[in-house]
């Protein structure tokens, strides 16, 4: 009885505490995400008539459609991003399985920390590490010559495959963590039951494990895809000037061309198109976004 009255007296205070706790998140969301995007939207929808005079226009969006370079770049970026996401999933799944189901106790946390360790180093340094390994005078081409596999050092940088490797490496952790948590919640007796009823490795993977881990797989894939398609550093450094990554186009518009309107339109297009791809992905895998985010 007393506890109840206490709770009622405390209600306004509790509400205030909740507001205070939420304040940083609200400020962050409003100040750094909503407001800039509103500004971007306004920017992207105007055309300069004369200095200082602007009018409403879809010109920037039309440029994206009319100029093949731009939408080709986007398609290419999206394609490589999807490929990178799929590769990350394929590599991360066995690793996550090993961490969640095979090792026990201390080794489990040690392995997760090992996945985290590359993130101790800044992304720039990590990517430069790849460059040291892969450039013509780098470690790997030298090794290939020493082993007699190639006659002269091969330039391994500035290929699409190099970009892919860099992106997968950067994304690994974001796939492994949701997969581990999804697989850990899978009851081992389900796998045994399926085996007992006549299932084999592949059918159990496909009928039992993948459906159970689907929210984790989708969550990891969304995160990796969004990080990859919006990545700037890795494609630029590993792919060189001709990497044709969509974020580079945005950078060019804002910084080199000083065409903020066009850059804003590209930024918006990136947001809309990548969201559309994620939506299609969710529909194809029959997952709901809320469910995925809750269970991952």
């Amino acid at each position, binding site marked *: 009885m007393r506890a109840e009255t206490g709770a009622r007296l405390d209600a306004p205070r509790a509400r205030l505490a909740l507001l205070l706790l939420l304040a940083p998140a609200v400020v962050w969301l409003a100040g750094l995400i909503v407001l800039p995007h509103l500004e971007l939207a306004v920017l992207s929808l105007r055309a300069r008539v004369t200095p200082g005079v602007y009018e409403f226009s879809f010109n920037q969006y039309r440029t994206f459609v009319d100029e093949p370079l731009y939408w080709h770049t986007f398609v290419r970026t999206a394609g490589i991003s999807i490929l990178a996401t799929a590769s990350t999933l394929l590599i991360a799944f066995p690793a996550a399985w090993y961490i969640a189901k095979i090792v026990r106790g201390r080794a489990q946390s040690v392995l997760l920390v090992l996945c985290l360790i590359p993130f101790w180093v800044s992304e720039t340094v990590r990517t430069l590490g790849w460059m040291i390994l892969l450039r013509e005078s780098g470690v790997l081409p030298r090794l290939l010559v020493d082993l007699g596999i190639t006659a002269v050092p091969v330039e391994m940088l500035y290929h699409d495959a190099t970009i892919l490797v860099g992106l997968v490496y950067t994304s690994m952790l974001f796939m492994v963590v949701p997969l581990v948590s999804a697989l850990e919640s899978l*009851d081992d*007796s*389900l796998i*045994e*039951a*399926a*085996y*007992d*009823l*006549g*299932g*084999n490795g592949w*059918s159990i993977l496909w*009928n*039992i494990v993948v*459906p*159970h881990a689907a929210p984790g797989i989708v969550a990891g894939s969304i995160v990796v895809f969004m990080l990859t398609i919006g990545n700037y550093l890795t494609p630029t450094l590993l792919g060189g000037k001709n990497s044709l990554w969509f974020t580079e186009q945005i950078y060019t518009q804002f910084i080199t061309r000083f065409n903020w309107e066009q850059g804003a339109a590209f930024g918006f297009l990136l947001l809309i198109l990548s969201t559309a791809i994620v939506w299609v992905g969710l529909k194809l895998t029959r997952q709901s976004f809320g469910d995925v985010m809750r269970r991952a």
Partner: protein
Amino acid sequence: MRRRIFLDGETATSRMQQDLEVDGVTKRYGSHTAVDALSLAVPHGSFFSILGPSGCGKTTLLRIIAGFIAPDDGDIRIGGRSMRAVPPNRRPVNMVFQHLALFPMMTVGENVGYGLTRRGAARLEIASRVDAMLKRVGLPGAQDKRVDQLSGGQKQRVAIARCLVLEPTLLLLDEPLGALDLKLREHMKIELKQLQAEFGTTFVYITHDQSEALVLSDRVAVMNAGRFEQVGTPQELYYQPQSAFVAGFVGANNRVVGTVTRIDGDIVTLATAEGLAVRARAIGAIVAGDRVETYVRPEVVAIARDASELALGTQRFCGRVQSLLFDGANSAVLVREATTRAEVRIALPQTGRFADLEVDETIAFGFDAQRAVCFPAVKHAG
């Protein structure tokens, strides 16, 4: 290789009636022997239970039979065929798991049809067999339900149907009633027995609950520390326990520990530390001076307000009523024996003659020495 299979076929005909034969199976984990050179045979169509406390190795044995664990030694024959190197998905054995392990990502129909799908049966055939099986377990038309829409009892029926639709030689059940609440457990116990009788499939059931084992089984093996203490019908285990462990584990029992002072034929007289003399029937080799333990069932002990009311020839004791445990037909009274201060559980006659018994009342009690059993004392494991 061919020759071996032929030989197995030969043995199959001679042992036609045994669905399961376990032959000297041993499993060690480091220095701990979980299953110690066990042998058993389960005839076709019977309900066989393995009863034992947790950690006695019964789950290990079941998983060896299912094929999830390879024994260090010995062989398993199912339907007369050696299961050495046969993986679980190829054995004519299916298992109902402790928490049932229904596939939550599938409907009830897909769960029941899973094994048939894996065998590559035609879609129509699967549908009709699933339909027939669900009818037989009393869940007609439940195909499209999700697993989480089912009650505990229905889930259990689906788990059994999922196995029986494959027509296994043997169905293994790993304490499937453990997770249910008491009332449902009582109900499912009866249902399980009826299902077994109806399908005629050989059931091997493991449990730590002696009531489940006694009610359900044709035969029960009492397991302790990796070995069988006794294998027999529920009646044999209850009335003729062959070891102190079985007497203590199966059914309620009063235990008296003492030293043998006299032997008359099969009746020994033991003296407790306090000097109380108790007579009981000896099981196994006992000589004067041995440490022994005697077990007396609560329903064997007769109670009387006056010692003269007790039948002639029964040994008589007296004590004070400590507490009354009224439970309808299972009512009992706890009496503190006068000399040893030991607590004795006595079943009250169902006639209600002692319904007016009161705490602290002094009463006489006694029992026929032939109906109490006495074993050489052993140290209890765990």
